[in-house]
């Protein structure tokens, strides 16, 4: 293999040991692992909340949960899965693999990368600490419609925790996006032109732009909400002339692109796995890449399709219906290209491939129901019903989660150097497939039969008992599948077969280094000549895909405490802000302490950069 080169120049970065090694790391791979593990923990917490929801709804007029408890649980389930599970798992994979796939040694801003991770963790902690300190968790749903979020109707401090948690998560995502964009623009290996980048890199690039354009809208929204709740303003309060509908526009201008923020990385990862396990290149590379861009751009023109029921008027309904239907075109193009990639291939049904195929099969169902929801009159019947719940779970679970589980099997060998068990992996896939459909397919029926979403219970005489019971059984099946994954993960981590550099006979640069890769990723610099540098070197002839520059001096920044100190400052600042209006004697000192901590972090940060101006 081309990578087995021993005449190398390493940058001997000072490394710390044990847990300090993780706290101070600025290595994109370690940060990626921390992202993924943290996100998976939140996925499990969000999943347990889902089980509570399904237990409560398994039988009519169930009293397992009170309405207040149920409303907190479903709000936290949505918030957790969107902001603390799917988004950061995506961020984790991007962190780990974008630099590797473009042949870079690290992210453009390694310290800011660490900060992004710590703000994710701290944001999640702020949000969940509402259970303990807030008198109750947020309870207004993940899209938090005003004026239900006002202190009149949401009497606990939960929504304040929600706002500040989201602020930290927002800073995390924004910094992460800037980092990904700059990394992709600046750090591609020589010869890695844009139209040679792996599609996962393409989709990471598009997703990061979406985040940068979408996040400001919700940031403004939650800031105004925080002022309404704490400082007596009336942005969303109708009694004083504020407008609840303003919140909906601010939220959905973020909220709809957010859907693509969650699903585009999944598209990217599937576009990596399908070709590898079909032993063919992706069919229509340009079309797959540019349709992702098209989806991203169109995604900003459709937000009000979430608001058809608000009486927007015929002209607005027509425009947003048309724009939403238009998105089916680039999405259809992607699906057809994936299918064409399989055509005349030599398909190997390894676990990542099973999840990729499952992704196509399930995502299509979510896409079909999605187009039907764009038809405004039909939407008026099924919006805010269980039909919508079924629809977005087919997109986000059948789509994103399936793809991300596939990605876990695909990249686990690279990250750990060990293979995951194929046998257990197949069990995982089939149990999840069964459980997923059992849970969510019946919910289409429930919606059509008039069951609204977000109801804490329902009556026996509605005719909804059977499908709800099926759905609850399915949810436990999903839980079992996830448990199988955890077992597989632990067993494989301990006893997995050695992976080698390139266990799947793949095409992209992350497989052209050791598993796991060294701190500096590559011992040599690759000069890229094709879209599939590794594949073409293997099958078209050495040097056809890439050539090697041995005169290469990787340079890595040393570990740093600055990111975690700075992030911890912002974390304390959140609690200061929480107390500013209600208990200024606690709030103001806390804010001062927080700013001091952040300043210490920033000061170290700037000092380190001054010592090491290259990074």
């Amino acid at each position, binding site marked *: 293999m081309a990578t087995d080169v021993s005449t190398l120049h390493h940058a001997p970065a000072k490394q710390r040991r044990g847990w300090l090694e993780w706290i101070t790391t600025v290595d994109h791979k370690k940060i990626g692992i921390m992202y993924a593990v943290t996100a998976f923990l939140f996925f499990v917490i969000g999943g347990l909340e889902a089980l509570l929801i399904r237990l409560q709804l398994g039988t009519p007029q169930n009293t397992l949960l009170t309405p207040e408890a149920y409303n907190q649980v479903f709000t936290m389930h949505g918030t957790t899965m969107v902001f603390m599970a799917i988004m950061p798992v995506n961020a984790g994979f991007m962190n780990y693999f974008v630099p590797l796939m473009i042949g870079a040694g690290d992210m453009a801003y390694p310290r800011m990368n660490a900060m992004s991770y710590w703000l994710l963790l701290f944001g999640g902690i702020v949000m969940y600490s509402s259970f303990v300190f807030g008198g109750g968790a947020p309870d207004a*749903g993940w899209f938090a419609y005003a004026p239900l979020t006002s202190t009149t109707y949401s009497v606990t401090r939960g929504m304040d925790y929600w706002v500040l948690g989201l602020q930290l998560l927002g800073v995390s995502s924004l910094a992460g996006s800037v980092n990904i964009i700059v990394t992709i623009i600046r750090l591609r290996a020589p010869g890695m032109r844009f139209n040679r980048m792996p599609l996962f890199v393409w989709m990471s690039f598009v997703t990061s732009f979406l985040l940068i354009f979408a996040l400001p809208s919700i940031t403004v929204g939650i800031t105004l909400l925080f002022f309404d709740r704490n400082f007596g303003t009336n942005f969303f309060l109708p009694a004083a002339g504020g407008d*609840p509908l303003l919140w909906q526009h601010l939220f959905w201008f973020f909220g709809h692109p957010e859907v693509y923020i969650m699903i585009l990385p999944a598209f990217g990862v599937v576009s990596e796995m399908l070709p590898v396990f079909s032993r063919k290149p992706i069919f229509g590379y340009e*079309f797959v890449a540019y349709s992702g861009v098209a989806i991203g751009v169109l995604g900003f023109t459709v937000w009000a399709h979430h608001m058809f*029921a608000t009486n927007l008027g015929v002209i607005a309904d027509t425009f947003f219906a*048309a724009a939403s239907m238009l998105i089916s075109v680039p999405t259809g193009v992607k699906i057809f*290209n994936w299918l064409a990639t399989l055509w*005349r291939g030599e398909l190997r049904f390894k676990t990542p491939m099973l999840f990729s*195929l499952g992704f196509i099969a399930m995502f299509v169902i979510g896409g079909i129901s999605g187009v039907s929801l764009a038809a405004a009159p039909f939407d008026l019947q099924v919006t805010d019903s269980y039909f919508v719940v079924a629809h977005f779970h087919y997109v986000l679970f059948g789509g994103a989660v399936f793809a991300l589980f596939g990605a876990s099997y695909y990249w686990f060998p690279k990250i750990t150097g060990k293979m995951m068990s194929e046998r257990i992996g197949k069990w995982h896939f089939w149990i999840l497939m069964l459980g997923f459909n059992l849970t969510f397919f019946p919910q289409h029926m429930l919606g059509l*039969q008039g069951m609204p979403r977000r109801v804490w219970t329902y009556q026996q005489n509605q*005719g909804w008992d059977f499908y709800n019971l099926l759905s609850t059984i399915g949810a436990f099946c999903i839980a079992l599948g996830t448990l199988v994954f955890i077992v597989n993960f632990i067993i494989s981590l301990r006893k997995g077969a050695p992976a080698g550099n390139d266990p799947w006979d793949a095409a992209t640069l992350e497989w052209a280094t050791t598993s796991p890769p060294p701190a500096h990723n590559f011992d040599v610099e690759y000069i890229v000549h094709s879209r599939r540098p590794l594949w073409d070197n293997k099958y078209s002839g050495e040097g056809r895909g890439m050539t090697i520059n041995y005169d290469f001096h990787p340079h890595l920044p040393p570990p740093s405490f600055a990111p975690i100190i700075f992030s911890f400052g912002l974390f304390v600042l959140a609690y200061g802000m929480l107390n500013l209006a209600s208990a200024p004697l606690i709030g103001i000192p806390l804010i001062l302490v927080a700013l001091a901590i952040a300043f210490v972090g920033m000061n170290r940060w700037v000092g380190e950069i001054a010592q090491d101006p290259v990074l």
Partner: protein
Amino acid sequence: MPNRSPAKALLRPTATLLLGSVVLAACGQKTPQTTLNPASESTRAIYNLSELLFWLGVVVFLIVQTWLIVSIIKYRQKDSSQIPTQIHGNTKVEIAWTIVPAIIAIVIFVFTFDTIRKIEFMPDEAAGNTLNVKVIGHQWWWEFQYPDIKDASGKPLVTANELWIPSGSYIDVKMTSVDVIHDFWIPGLAGKRDVMPNRESGLWFKADDVADGSPAVFWGQCAEYCGGQHAYMKMRVVVASPADFQKWSSEQSQVAVNTTLPESFTKNCIGCHVVRGTNAAGITGPDLTHFGGRMTIAAGTTDNTREHLYAWLDDPDAVKRGNIMTTAIKADTLTEAEITELVDYLESLNPGTSVKGQQ
């Protein structure tokens, strides 16, 4: 494609099974709140659109899944040493499968626009055959006002949680909320419309004809999450023949059939409830003037029977946790004798035209 037939043989029973289960489930159980049984011009228009969406969806589903399954069967790896032909793409094919979804999207859009037109614009023939209804959303119950129908004192007729309308008339609904955003949804008669605190929203519908003496009951429910008891913000809509509606509305616009308030009512209830013809004039809670004839208690939480009413007055929080009446009536507020007195009184407030007890 030589291997087409086995895949087809696999798919056809699957599709039949799938569709069969949909149909079976729709018929097997009574679903009073279903969208699949439209009974107005607008819901029928929506239903027709959804049928188109469903069948186009089935076609797309079958194409993609067939393609997927055929690929899986046909191109399973036979020889691990073999490298398949490296096909990078084909621009003609790409253009084709860009145009095909675009055409499908345009077809859907045309029918969507047509349906929007049908359900949003009230036809000209509605003039002179329109009943105005005002819906007011409260956490967690519905107030209905009839601006065109005045009671004896000249005020619009008011009722709660049970909306009567005449069949064959255009019902012009205007809505507002006194607190958070709610959503007015009667799946059999009209699609959803948000009920907002700072602006008036509206919709119209025209229910199919019913015969004299056999009113049709439709179930509806708040469809925008509105806090604690969102689940129990329900309503019944009774579609009556014009003659029956006339009878009902003339009864409803009278004062209560029994205007002698029991002492416990005066002591506990008049601050929040209206009983026309008495000094009960509170407006926080539902108008109770003709409560005895209504189908349900507490916005569809339970059927209106003496036993349920007793339980409700005994401990409203146990029946519908968190509702606003619990601020006044706790589990030990009323004695047994007082509750019985209140049940007797409230159940007596039935002017006659009622579908109470009917499902």
